[in-house]
């Protein structure tokens, strides 16, 4: 079930609800799937030093990030009994309220899809070289720090 080719993960700008709907719809021919688990990361309008975050601009060390995504995929396929797995992450600007991360796992029974989804999201946050720059209304910014 592992997939040796490097799959495209990065998407320029936000991940749209219709992109997510298309990804879900494509699975209706895979009739051995009983459970899908989806995680979506959405950009928050946090208030930092009295200023509201209006967007995050994502950059990555692309070459290393792609290797890491591939590695995470391989480990997840080994560790869990999955039918499908898709990971998408934004690069560039994503406004608050928009989606920047989409992890989608599918399995026969619910436990594998759910546990794999959590595993993958945690690994992405910890291991993939991506940086978010939180941009305020006045165009000033700070570099985002993830909560563990």
């Amino acid at each position, binding site marked *: 079930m592992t997939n040796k080719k490097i799959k495209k993960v990065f998407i320029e700008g936000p991940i749209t609800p219709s992109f997510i709907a298309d990804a879900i719809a494509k699975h209706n021919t895979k009739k051995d799937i009983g459970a899908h688990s989806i995680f979506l990361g959405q950009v928050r309008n946090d208030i930092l030093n009295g200023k509201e975050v209006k967007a995050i601009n994502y950059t990555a*060390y692309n070459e290393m990030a792609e290797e890491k995504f591939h590695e995470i995929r391989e480990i997840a396929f080994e560790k869990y009994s999955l039918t499908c797995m898709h990971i998408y992450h934004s690069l560039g600007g994503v406004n608050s309220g928009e989606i920047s991360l989409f992890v989608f796992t599918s399995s026969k029974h619910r436990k594998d899809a759910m546990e794999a989804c959590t595993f993958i999201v945690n690994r992405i*946050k910890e291991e993939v070289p991506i*940086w978010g720059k939180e941009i305020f209304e006045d165009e000033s910014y700070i570099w985002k720090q993830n909560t563990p």
Partner: protein
Amino acid sequence: MKIKILAFGIIADIVGKSEWTIENIQQTDDLKKHLENLYPRLKSMKYAIAVNLVITSGNFELTDGAILALMPPFSGG
């Protein structure tokens, strides 16, 4: 011996560039010392060093043509 250096996130801001080459540096500890002299703010920064896409630990021996990345804590997702 030439090393290509990539800087990301806040480190690129501090050093004022995201890609350059450097000569006559043999080990990652030497590079850190060199950079921290030029950019003292780096001393208080937490960052990882990847060499040829692999994160290093301790003092790592560099080879000619290596690509070295200075990476502050990740904040994807």
